[in-house]
């Protein structure tokens, strides 16, 4: 049975959790005008890697990337898998630490950071532990029923104070491409490259058509644009660049008389907490997959608690937001390596595999 809906909701959920916090800040930092070019560039990059990745995977029916790579040269496999493993672990640490800080800045200012981080690790750990991948996929459908409505509501109302004049100038010639030289742009790719690896782990558990993913990405494009453009249109670039979390701030400025809630930010944040926990759960599951299939089949009973413990301890060692930011920046090189090398190597292997199969067919 194909699980197109579940896979595409999973894909959307994991990305939505990443978009609204750091992504707008990075895009606004990387360019002064014509932000849509930056967003579109990142998005095309995202589509490209997904296309190559899915194309590569389609050559191997029902195998995930660990299987595919391990069947070939072990050494070569680790050249690809080790960075992936490192990247995923790095991402978990960053996501937990950064999100705990966001929660602390945004609304839980009295709660100590370690409880927030523990919360962000234990619940996703528990989800992965209990639900495995089938549970995660089903959970994504449940999440979309529960949380998409408030998120869409907040996204729609966040246009309340926009001044469309800030849209201009739309194109400033070669200066529109200046963001390519700015490190923040490469940092912003986090929102595009954070969750795509998952697609490679799914084939052995759930069948899906690539079309489901492309449709899902069409849902994400408005979210990327809104997260950047709503702050820019409401406050102007010069003001928006002063803010740590521009989108959250703009949501705070919305006043709706008929709504009994004063701060509708809470709706957005709670939904995003859910999405982010889901993202962390999915990432834990990917690490689990690599270790169990690639290294040794250790029982999740031991593996998940140890992943959580190690992540928690590393998170505790990160003292401040500046370090988080720096870690994001350092992560860039690895991110680009993973985002380009993994899809390309899978694709090359796929081509070789297909050729071999063809030759075998011809010989027999």
């Amino acid at each position, binding site marked *: 049975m194909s699980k197109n809906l579940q896979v595409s909701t999973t894909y959307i959920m994991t990305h939505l959790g990443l978009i609204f916090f750091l992504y707008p800040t990075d895009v606004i930092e990387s360019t002064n005008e014509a932000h849509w070019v930056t967003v579109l560039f990142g998005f095309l990059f995202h589509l490209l890697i997904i296309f190559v990745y899915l194309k590569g995977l389609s050559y191997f029916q029902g195998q995930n990337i660990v299987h595919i790579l391990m069947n070939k040269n072990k050494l070569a496999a680790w050249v690809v898998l080790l960075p992936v493993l490192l990247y995923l672990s790095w991402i978990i640490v960053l996501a937990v630490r950064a999100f705990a800080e966001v929660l602390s800045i945004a609304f839980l200012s009295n709660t100590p950071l370690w409880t927030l981080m523990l919360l962000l690790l234990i619940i996703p750990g528990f989800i992965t532990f209990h639900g495995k991948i089938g549970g995660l996929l089903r959970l994504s459908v449940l999440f979309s029923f529960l949380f998409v409505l408030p998120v869409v509501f907040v996204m729609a109302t966040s246009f309340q104070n926009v001044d469309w004049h800030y849209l201009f100038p739309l194109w400033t010639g070669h200066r529109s491409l200046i963001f390519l030289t700015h490190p923040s742009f490469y940092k912003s790719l986090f929102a595009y490259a954070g969750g795509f690896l998952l697609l490679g782990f799914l084939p052995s558990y759930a069948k899906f058509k690539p079309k489901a993913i492309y449709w899902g990405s069409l849902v994400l494009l408005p979210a990327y644009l809104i997260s950047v453009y709503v702050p820019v249109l409401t406050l102007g670039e*010069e003001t928006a660049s002063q803010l740590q979390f521009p989108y959250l701030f703009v949501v705070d400025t919305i006043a709706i008389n008929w709504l009994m809630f004063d701060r509708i930010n809470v709706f957005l944040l709670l939904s995003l907490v859910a999405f982010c926990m889901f993202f962390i759960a999915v990432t834990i599951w990917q690490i689990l997959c690599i270790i169990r299939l690639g290294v040794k089949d250790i029982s999740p009973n031991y593996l998940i608690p140890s992943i959580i413990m190690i992540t928690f301890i590393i998170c505790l060692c990160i003292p401040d937001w500046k370090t988080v930011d720096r870690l994001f920046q350092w992560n860039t090189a690895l991110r680009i390596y993973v985002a380009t090398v993994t899809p390309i190597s899978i694709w090359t292997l796929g081509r070789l595999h297909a050729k071999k199969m063809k030759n075998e067919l011809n010989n027999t």
Partner: protein
Amino acid sequence: MKLRILIGVIFTTLLSGCWDNKDINHRALPIAMGISYQQGDYEVFLDIPKVSEKNEGIQVISAKGNTISSAIDHISMNLEDQVDLLHLKVIVVDKAFATRGLEEITSSIIRSRHVSPKTMFVICDEPLDRFFERINNPLNGDGNEIYDFFQKNSGWNPEIAYTPVWKVFRSIHSYTNDVVLPIIQSGHSTTIQSVGSGILKNGRMVGRLNNEQTLLYNVFDGNSLQGKIEVMGKSTVQIVSSHIRNHSSFVNQKPELNSKLYLKVVIMDTVGSPSTASIETELQVLLQRVLDQIFIKIQRANADIFGIGQHFRDDLTRSELAQWRTQYFPQVKIKLDIQTVIRNTGNLKLP
């Protein structure tokens, strides 16, 4: 299986995030805050409603400090409850503070996130201690007047400027957007009296508008709601809808803005029996005159309260736009064309 569920339940209850919570009866929730500035010291006034069965009115507490937050901390220290600024609706500053600049307080509000960015900024025309003493006179009412005065669904009027903190923040950093803040003082027969509005440029007060000008500012800025205009000696009309069309261009390298303001009004009362045509022309002349006055005033002060520079974003490069207020704005030619339509004359006919 049971163990797993038990673990799940234990962790979700323990890690629910309700940490160090103070119950609502141990919090003091001020609705208005006054800040005055004298020789390097801030004096903060907090307007805290007394919560009890009988509505006992309001309690005003004040303290001094080097910074605003230290003054608030002083109050919190000496108060039996914890001061929680989450529901603050109005921040009143005195003229001295507004002239000196609201930049620091705005950024500290936005940084700390304790105060909502939707809070209103208001300038007070008299010393704050006297103002707070007078508005909280128990004979006047229940003490919520300052809160109701600025609420769009209760006491707000189109003659009063309406500017939340985030707009002031935008004005401080933006190249092309300035704001006006309402100016109030304690009234004679009512608790509060509106005395126009102050023009803020980059967070500093540089000029004033009177009530009538503020109404037209609101109309021209596109947020008119049922404002009433007195047409000299002839009639009073109420604006029922307004709509502006702007066209920007550069003529001889000088910015030019052609604005067309379409107004629909209904007649409220008349003196004698003027014809509708004469009221229309009279109204146009009046609006033209007042708006021209405002334009001259703001161009002298270099404060772009209408966001006129916004229309030139496409014509200027970013570095040119950064000099909008000083280089281009004083040169802008604003050609205003006002079209008024009298939609109806009420229940009585007019010639």
